[in-house]
């Protein structure tokens, strides 16, 4: 296991390194000059050159990249805005905020959205999927399957505004979505996120319903499950003791990927509900050609995805004894 983890972590570092190079190159490949965004009304070549110098954009790309890596690992005291301890992604071009501090500041919003959403979509998705498999061929199964089909074709940018209009602005049944610090006021935290969770879980749950149902049905056809049934074990025992465990592998795989992606920033969800998380930050970084912030968000998001992939792989061994990681 240890060997597996070391190997995967080293692989992840290589991927992150390559990703940072690609992001750097893509940024400079864009037909856009971040200096122009900061150049004020009476922009002219001298002002622009001054801004390039202040931002360090007048240095060769390789030098800029080397400085970025050095600062990331060792930190830097060379910024006019103040010290930048490792991991130092520098200061935002647009807001002059320290990028790492900004990422950490936005993380609780994204974590809250992700974990709450995941709780709901797992609960609803798996529950409905298992029920459909249990009641295969019945009206319940058909309703769940059709419902999942319809909901999986929905998009957040449709359901989100619809939920806001119906549940918040017209009927006032729920609070307007907002992120409030959990430690400061758990009730406000919950009430501010319930609508985003519901919308997120509605869309994701459909996918898990379909997957849980098909994986369960497939497992129920397996020889070891049929053998267990033939040996006289109860349907409930076989369902949960054998079939359920076997059906978890594809679900865990997808869940790990979804969780990593959501923790990296649920861009549309955060945008729709005006939540100040990593997804909104990513949008801001792109629109303002903010290289330090862009790199910070990209690497942070990629780290989350890679981390959860490793966790998923590690989980296989626990779920299915046949899997040997090393």
């Amino acid at each position, binding site marked *: 296991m240890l060997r597996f983890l070391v190997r995967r972590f080293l692989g992840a570092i290589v991927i992150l390194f390559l990703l940072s190079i690609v992001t750097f190159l893509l940024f400079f490949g864009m037909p856009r000059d971040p200096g122009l965004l900061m150049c004020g*009304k009476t922009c002219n070549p001298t002002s622009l050159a001054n801004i390039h110098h202040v931002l360090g954009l007048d240095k060769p790309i390789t030098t800029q990249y080397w400085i970025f890596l050095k600062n990331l690992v060792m930190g830097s005291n060379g910024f006019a805005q103040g010290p930048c301890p490792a991991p130092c992604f520098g200061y935002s071009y647009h807001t002059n905020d320290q990028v790492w501090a900004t990422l950490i500041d936005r993380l609780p919003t994204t974590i809250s959205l992700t974990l709450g959403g995941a709780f709901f979509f797992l609960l609803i998705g798996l529950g409905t999927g298992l029920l459909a498999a249990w009641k295969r061929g019945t009206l319940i199964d058909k309703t769940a399957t059709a419902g999942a089909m319809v909901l999986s074709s929905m998009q957040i940018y449709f359901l989100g505004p619809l939920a806001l209009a119906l549940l918040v602005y017209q009927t006032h049944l729920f609070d307007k979505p907002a992120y409030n610090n959990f430690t400061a006021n758990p009730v406000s935290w919950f009430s501010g996120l319930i609508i985003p969770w519901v919308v997120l879980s509605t869309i994701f749950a459909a996918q898990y319903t379909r997957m849980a149902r098909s994986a369960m049905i497939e497992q129920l056809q397996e020889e070891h499950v049929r053998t267990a049934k033939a040996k006289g074990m109860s349907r409930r025992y076989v369902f949960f003791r054998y079939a359920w465990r076997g059906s978890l592998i594809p679900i865990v795989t997808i869940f790990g990927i979804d969780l990593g992606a959501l923790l990296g920033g649920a861009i549309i969800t955060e945008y729709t509900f005006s939540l100040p998380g990593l997804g909104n930050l990513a949008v801001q970084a792109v629109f303002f050609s903010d290289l330090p912030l862009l790199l910070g968000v990209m690497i942070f998001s990629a780290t989350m995805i890679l981390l959860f992939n490793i966790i998923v792989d590690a989980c296989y061994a626990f779920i299915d004894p046949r899997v040997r990681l090393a």
Partner: protein
Amino acid sequence: MSRGGRHVYAALSVLAAGALVLTGCSKGGSDASDNNKQDKENAARQQKSIKFGDAADSTGPAPAVPGAKSGGSIEVLQRDSYAHLDPAQIYVSDEGSLATLLHRGLTGYKTTTADGKGHEVVGDLATDSGTTTDGGKTWKYTLKDGIKFADGTPITSADFRQTFERLFASYINQGPTYIQQWLADTAGADYRKLLPDGPYKGKHLPSTVLETPDAKTVIFHFKTAHADLPYALAMAGYAVVSAKGDTQVKYDKNPVTSGPYKIQSFKSGKSMVLVKNTNWDPKTDPIRHQYVDQFNFTFNQQFETSTKALLADSGADQTGISFNNQVDAGNLSSVLKDPKMKSRTVSGYQPYVGQMNINNSHPAMKDKLVREAIAYALPITPFLRAFGGTDAMEVAGGTISPTVSGYNAAFDPFGKKKNPAGDPVKAKALLKKAGKLNMKLTFGYTNTPEGQQYSTAMAAGLKKAGFNVQRQEIPAETYYDQVSKLDNNYDIFHTAWGADWPSASTVVPPLYDGRVIADGAQNYSQVNDPKVNADIDAANKITDPVKAAAAWEKIDEYLVKDLVSFVPTAYYKQTQIAGSKVGGLVYDDVLGGVDPRRLFVK
């Protein structure tokens, strides 16, 4: 209002557009004659009433807002977080609105009517709007008694020396540059050579440029007359900075304020809380009020989100407002048609004026008949329709906005106000006369939903007149970067520009002076006409504001009618909404939005 802001405006229009896409909203015109009439009356009154006030006009406190009472909190829903809090870095209208609560300068705009519509430039921290004895070359300001920063430190002339000297330092690059250029008597960014390191390495501006003979006196010495100085000093970018508290780059995050409020907390991109500045003395301030105990800002609120929340008018949103978000295009018509909702709105002109630039550097565009054909053929209706109809836009005759002195409502050389759909027949005749029927015309447009919509209909109108229109999409986030390149291949493209103060001296020179043509500069049409250049120089020397306004309007009319260098399209307007418990709601034509200084909780 701001060049930088315009870039941001272009970039963020994608976000706004996204909000529109979510609801699939877009609409045609609506019956808005009452609103239009009121907007015009307000604008006319405002541009006529602006004068430079004396000591009596500059004495505080500000006249009480009818019905106002103190206390309570106001929730402010903003789309964009504030990138800058250091006054020297403030140019865009969002931060300009915020600055009215936080920062004070030597001069400012005082409202002169109970509805907050009339204005005059008065002394803010200074005793009057400035005195000059030599036609605008030397300006003297005397500071009021009892003025303090939020930390309790008295404001002296040393703070103003610091304020103006630090503008020359290289890290200040986002704010206005008028006064730096005037002090250095130069154009472009060469002004920095006067004090390359700002005041931070022991050097200072000589007394022949900036004089502070005692703690209460500030004297500006210019080599050429600048009659607009009181206007320029009223910009947030020239508000006072504490010499003691100047932390240079870090000041942008935590400035020492001088206005009625100070920053209790600011989480960039998330929230901000303003609380009362107890060291602000209303007796020294003829402009601002301090009715509200606290302003709570929430960012990332798209136009549609803030509109729906404020329309719903429940809970904290009853005391909600947005300083800069508009009523989104999808809801605008229904809001204005409902008297109950309309009573919670304010509307007026934004500083922006749109124009279809004709790229005068392209050989095919050098033929005046071709340019005239474009001007007659171009339909303006699609542009208005794309942005929400006549509630959000008004057909423009020239590039001088209704809120700027010198505006001529009757000027409409191509009959656009009467016939915004264009005149393809006349245009075709002109094109035929030029022998250019079916000539290729490359139309660069921004790929926002609005851009897609209006460019398609405009291209159809131009095609009717005999142009072979080739539309070329430009990503919204790089739009202004692309069209401001000298070597671009677009024959026509749309831009918008706003005045920095109610004088066309901040419109005509940057847009049409042929000597400032450069990559990234704002003479997008690349107009370089000797008469225009000479007239700009002459107008800049006029110290009488009325005569100057007439001179600028004359240049504008020459550019539009005689040179046909571009086609004016629309004056931008906006409607804003507040919760039912927000009082003191007025639209300020100078700010181009709701006036935060007069707000109170009912």
